[in-house]
């Protein structure tokens, strides 16, 4: 699995597009800046929705209205996040593949996505009973709190990817090398 991922990363890293992204100082910095600033749109809108679901923001507006009206700007934000995120990966594929934080981030993203999908289903089936309640029922609040927690974790891991604390080839504990997917005999050797 890790060998395969490394091969995949190496094949991306060998493309002129990847090299160009990595070598171009300004392009990479611009993409990273867009990725960080779009946080204000994607997570910004998500926070408004989740805080409404927690019953602490815009309590006097029906919950479904907030969720529906902010859905589009949130998804626009997340689309930009995905595109810039993929470009950031393509620019530094090998080191990112073997980054402990990147791996945790991907797991948290999947968890956040599943939580959002389950929440959407829960909302569609039951929102009629609590739409105008200033403070939604417990299950809704738990889902919203979980969503905010997962995304806080995503932000932390995203920021930590930039640091080389646990890069492969260093004197890491065996568990860290396992979790980061370091392949024996290979060193990341690629830095951002």
């Amino acid at each position, binding site marked *: 699995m890790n060998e395969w991922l490394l091969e995949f990363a190496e094949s991306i890293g060998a493309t002129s597009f990847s090299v160009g992204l990595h070598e171009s100082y300004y392009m990479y910095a611009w993409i990273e800046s867009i990725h*960080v600033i779009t946080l*204000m749109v994607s*997570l910004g809108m998500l926070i408004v929705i989740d805080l409404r679901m927690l019953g602490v923001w815009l309590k*006097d*507006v029906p919950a479904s209205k907030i969720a529906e*009206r*902010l859905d589009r700007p949130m998804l626009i934000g997340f689309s930009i996040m995905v595109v810039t995120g993929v470009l950031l990966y393509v620019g530094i594929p090998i080191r990112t593949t073997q980054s402990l934080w990147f791996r945790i981030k991907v797991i948290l993203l999947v968890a956040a996505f599943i939580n959002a999908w389950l929440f959407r289903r829960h909302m569609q089936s039951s929102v009629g009973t609590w739409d105008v309640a200033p403070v939604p029922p417990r299950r809704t609040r738990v889902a919203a709190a979980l969503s905010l927690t997962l995304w806080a974790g995503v932000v932390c891991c995203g*920021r*930590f990817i930039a*640091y080389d604390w646990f890069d492969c080839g260093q004197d890491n504990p065996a568990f860290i090398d396992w979790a980061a997917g370091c392949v024996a005999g290979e060193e990341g050797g690629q830095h951002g």
Partner: protein
Amino acid sequence: MSLLSYFEALEASPIGVFVKDKAATFACIEAVHLMALALLGASVLSADLRLLNVVLRDVPSNAVTEQAHRWFKLALGVLLVTGFFMLAGVATKCYHNPFYWAKMITLGLGIVFVFAIKQPLLRKDHAQLNPWTLKLVALASLMIWFVVAASGRWIGFSG
């Protein structure tokens, strides 16, 4: 004392030493700073996009902007505190960094703009105000906070 010596003193202070001592300390403060940035985005974008009639058009804009301002103050508070700690760790670097000063100037402008112009205006009944005034205020606010965030990110690239 010159301005630079204040920055040097901050970096040598216990706060500066605490932040600099371990890379993880700085990284964790950065992560909280980013989370607060997302909350700032939540409040600024919901209020300004409402004023621009882009989102939440069927919710009264007075209600949206008033409630957004509460979260804005919380986000700004966290950003200022975490920002101060980050500065303490790399104060002399920041002193020589043009993007740091660009950010501080726009941040100062932004704070004055929000508390002296935007909020006093938005506390009035929006229906009585010229719709273009509201739109221009929203546009100015979006631009200011975009520049603050963007120049902030750029401090890290040019250090």
